[in-house]
């Protein structure tokens, strides 16, 4: 079996994001950067597979230079090697250009049996980059994986979450899996891991290091573009009943009659 790769993203911590009620804009000051919460499950799964099969677990991220902190955190949890894909030429990438760039980087880094991604990133919520990577690499994928049951004879048997329950699928390796929260409980970093992460070498891959077509990068390689950004209308607090329960319920049911077709 070849190594395990996990693709992660650094995102702003939404718990920190606050809205300025006057200007109705985001207050970004003091907002911490964290590893996309869904990617934590992917990291944990990568470490478990590494421990089980005695292979290496490698992490990569694409982003600005400060995304290096996300990779160091992954190392503190038990990831062996980390790559930062960063270059001004990548700025403005949409999901197509991003998945293209990451796929090229993966080809450069090496051969992997399993590629793991979180099901989506909490800032963009697109869930497109994982499937995009597997398509560019022309490998199979299973999305919304909630359990990797078994890996044997270069085949993985996994459970894929659906709206109604789950499916059991068999996939030949190499294969890309996007994982959901149910798959595991991410571990905390260890003291030895933190120490290792401080001195670990993060390898940087820029456009020049990748075998890449320039007009497929960044803005130029991104078919979608943002034509406008605006703040949604804030929901305003409505009517709050503080009276006795009986009376409050009466009022509420009356107010809702039309909507529930009484």
């Amino acid at each position, binding site marked *: 079996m070849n190594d395990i790769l996990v693709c992660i993203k650094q995102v702003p911590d939404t718990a920190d994001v606050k809205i300025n009620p006057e200007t109705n804009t985001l207050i970004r000051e003091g907002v911490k950067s964290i590893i996309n919460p869904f990617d934590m499950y992917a990291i944990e799964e990568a470490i478990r597979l590494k421990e089980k099969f005695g292979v290496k677990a490698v992490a990569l991220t694409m982003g600005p230079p400060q995304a290096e902190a996300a990779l160091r955190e992954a190392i503190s949890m038990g990831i062996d090697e980390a790559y930062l894909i960063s270059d001004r030429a990548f700025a403005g990438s949409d999901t197509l250009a991003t998945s293209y760039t990451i796929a090229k980087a993966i080809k450069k880094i090496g051969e992997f049996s399993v590629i793991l991604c979180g099901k989506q990133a909490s800032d963009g919520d697109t869930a497109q980059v994982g499937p995009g990577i597997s398509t560019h690499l022309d490998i199979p994928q299973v999305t919304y994986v909630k359990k990797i049951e078994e890996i044997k004879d270069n085949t993985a048997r996994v459970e894929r979450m659906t709206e109604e329950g789950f499916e059991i699928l068999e996939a030949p390796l190499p294969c890309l899996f996007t994982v959901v929260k149910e798959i595991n409980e991410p*571990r*905390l*970093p*260890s*003291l*030895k*891991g*933190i*120490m290792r992460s401080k001195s670990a070498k993060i390898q940087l891959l820029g456009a020049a290091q990748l075998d890449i077509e320039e007009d497929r990068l960044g803005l130029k390689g991104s078919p979608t573009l943002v034509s406008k950004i605006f703040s949604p209308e804030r929901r305003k607090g409505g009517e709050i009943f503080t009276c006795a329960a009986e009376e409050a319920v009466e009022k509420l049911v009356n107010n809702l009659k039309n909507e529930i077709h009484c």
Partner: protein
Amino acid sequence: MMDYQLNEQQIMIRDLCRKIAQEKIAPIAAEYDKTEEFPWPIVKALAQADIFGVSIPVEYGGLGGGVLETCIATEELSKACGGITLCFAASYLGLDPIILFGNEEQKKKYLPDLAAGKKLAAFAITEPAAGSDASGIQTTAKKKGDHYVLNGTKHFITNGGEADIYVVIAMSDKTKGARGATAFILEKSMKGFTFGKKEDKLGIRASSTRELIFTDCEVPKENILGKEGMGFIITMKTFDVSRPGVASQALGIAAGALEAATKYARERIQFGKPISSFQGIQWMLADMATEVEAARALIYATARMIDAGVKSVSKESAMAKLFASDVAMKVTTDAVQIFGGYGYMKEYPAEKRMRDAKITQIYEGTNQIQRNIIALQLIKEMAK
């Protein structure tokens, strides 16, 4: 909090333990307090995070820290639950004598698994008839060929039944009195070693407090810690380094109570404003904060003194334990007062901290015994 000029590794231990306390321990503390289950999931989380190794020498798989590192970890973990923290702190009480007095073979055999958190340790001296008065120990160890045969009962043993490694004090020669006590390293699997009653306690309910029963339990003579007859010396020296740990547990419980009370005082509205705006509450909080900080300063100073290699530390160690545990009792009681009626209800964690705090005034030498130690040392020093 005052700046104690912690080094990089100490800050790392503090931050990681804080994270474990908040993310892993706090959400389950009430549940474990209720069910009295042993917190194995936390043992696993602490093991995975290398916390069991903080103060074990590097050559035995630890991180090479000293008493201060154990104290920092204990304090942070105790902020979330003083009971759950004991799985860690009591293991250190059991392994400290091995670090202090174990020979190379014993250290190599036992410390790596303890550092990795694969096994837990415990220390056993208390008996039904021997509490503060250790001379009442009735457990005997008779030499028979290349081993000793232990008979007797220990009780109130923290981590009892859950730990794999036990340091047990038994009388190998009753005629010699205090010099007739010997420390043995016992393994859970040894023949003739069984467990009795598990205690139902007021506080620290997530910790296991149990009876150890020895019935013709055969212990190889290689398992003697130090030398025959050194049992009491080993106990004293172990307590000298472990008492700052108990103090840290008390400190953590107090600090957790202070934080919760301050937060509550800002949120609780009475007479149209937060109760934190009333001077009566402010003064209580100010006193609590001052006492907590004083306890911390005393503990850290003591721990640093021990780590620096100062030999005579009994007095300072006893002071840290005495002061911090009295502070914990007072601060947790005041925290319940600030929470008012809610403080008295089991639904809120304030009353649990008060229950948890009480034991710190009692075990590893009651606070009366601590005062004896302090006074004795004080008078001795004056006599010099």
